[in-house]
């Protein structure tokens, strides 16, 4: 079955794009896009960077750690921004959470 819907993104979430949302670099237009049912979204640079880290393994806290180190920015501020962004994406149905695999 599908990953859970209506997820609530927190520091401990391990977000991942669902199978039907594909992050892809569009060579023709030179932009990153998220392909979804009847939708094409154009995430900005920061969003792309966050989404590339959403592999279903790392949790949101670890993603914030990475970005804080990379940009030498306050972790708390980054964490808050990342959660807002991911929650927004989740509410539109383009983000899910990794769960334990059931055979």
């Amino acid at each position, binding site marked *: *079955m*599908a990953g859970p*819907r*209506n997820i609530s993104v927190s520091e401990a979430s391990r977000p991942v794009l*669902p*199978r*039907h949302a*594909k992050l*892809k670099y*569009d*060579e*023709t*237009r030179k*932009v990153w*896009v*998220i*392909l979804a*049912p*009847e*939708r*094409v*979204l*154009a*995430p*900005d640079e*920061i*969003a792309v960077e966050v989404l590339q880290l959403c592999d279903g393994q790392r949790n949101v806290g670890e993603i914030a750690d990475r970005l804080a180190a990379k940009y030498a920015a306050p972790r708390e501020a980054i964490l808050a921004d990342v959660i807002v*962004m991911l929650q*927004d*994406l989740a*509410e*539109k*149905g*383009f983000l899910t959470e990794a769960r334990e695999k059931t055979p």
Partner: protein
Amino acid sequence: MSDVLGIPTIPPDASDSLAVLEKQRSTAETFGIPLAVLLEITHRCPLQCPYCSNPVELDRAGKELTTDEWKKVLSELAEIGVLQVHFSGGEPTARKDLVELVKHASDVGLYTNLITSAVLLTRERLSDLADAGLCHVQISFQGVEEGLADRVAGYRNGHRKKLEVAKWTRELDLPLTVNAVMHRQNLHQLPDIIQMAVDLDADRLEVANVQYYGWALKNRAALMPTVAQLDECTEIVEEARERLKGRLTIDYVVPDYYALRPKKCMGGWGRQFFNISPAGKVLPCHAAESITGLEFESVRSNHSIAWIWQNSDAFNRYRGTGWMKEPCKSCEFREIDFGGCRCQAFALTGDAANTDPACALSPLHETIFKQAEREAEGETNRFLYRNFAGGTLESENGT
């Protein structure tokens, strides 16, 4: 426009939902390749819906592109920058090679949508499609219970089958869109249709009011809703959108007869959309062949698809604003709606370059509005079913 992550995305109305990722630009500039292309891989269909959107002249099976020809088309589309394809028809599952085509589309990096009536699908075939990389399934529904739904489709036990396939779709972890085509005879079921979409665990619901050209125009008297029905429909959709936020996305297509402004059909002719017909013609919209006097180029010609999009006469004929006559020509909305729908203008006025009569500025608007109102109040409920036999009139007792 700003949506996820401060991103320019999807306008709410369905006709624009795959707008080219373009900034505001002058119509004189070149037109980018569309993000999504509709592939009508066959006109064959077991259903006989009275509002069928396929052209009145259907392509016969013998004229359809072969598997290899479609594969070549898919590769070419991916190469020139198309990101998504919709496998549609007719009924796309009527083609035996659908799994092979979806597989090829996935292999060349295209995002694949299936737009289906679902009645020919088995669970095994749907599972094969998922394995081939299918990304999304859209199933059309004609109503909420089998009596009316099967009558509209002219196909027995279709509704039951659709419910079953919708369930399999979610079991296979594929996102589901429920497409509900609405008209006078089923608008009263709209609240239940919305609930049905929720119960089926759909991600998206398209509430699409019938558009009246092609075959649907023949059935206008049996399908045209009243103004009161439409107002109620809009209220129901707005309430449901609010209530189901984050749970179900609802795209809403209103019929334009009762509007004051016409729809920006296809986002403007040749601006952000094309489709390919079963026989391989590259068309500015799926109804474009209803406009007589236009020659459409085929993928079987020696021109590339990109060349046809950019240079062919049919695409350039109504592109931008240069072709317009009054009242469009000097209208302040000319780049907002591009004069509405060319197919509707042709169907109702005999000249595709006229203002779409859906526009209040069209000299014909008043007459057509009045006629639609009369038809909506009328007693004509019998359908003229759509089929390769040239149409069948519904019997008096509704069979």
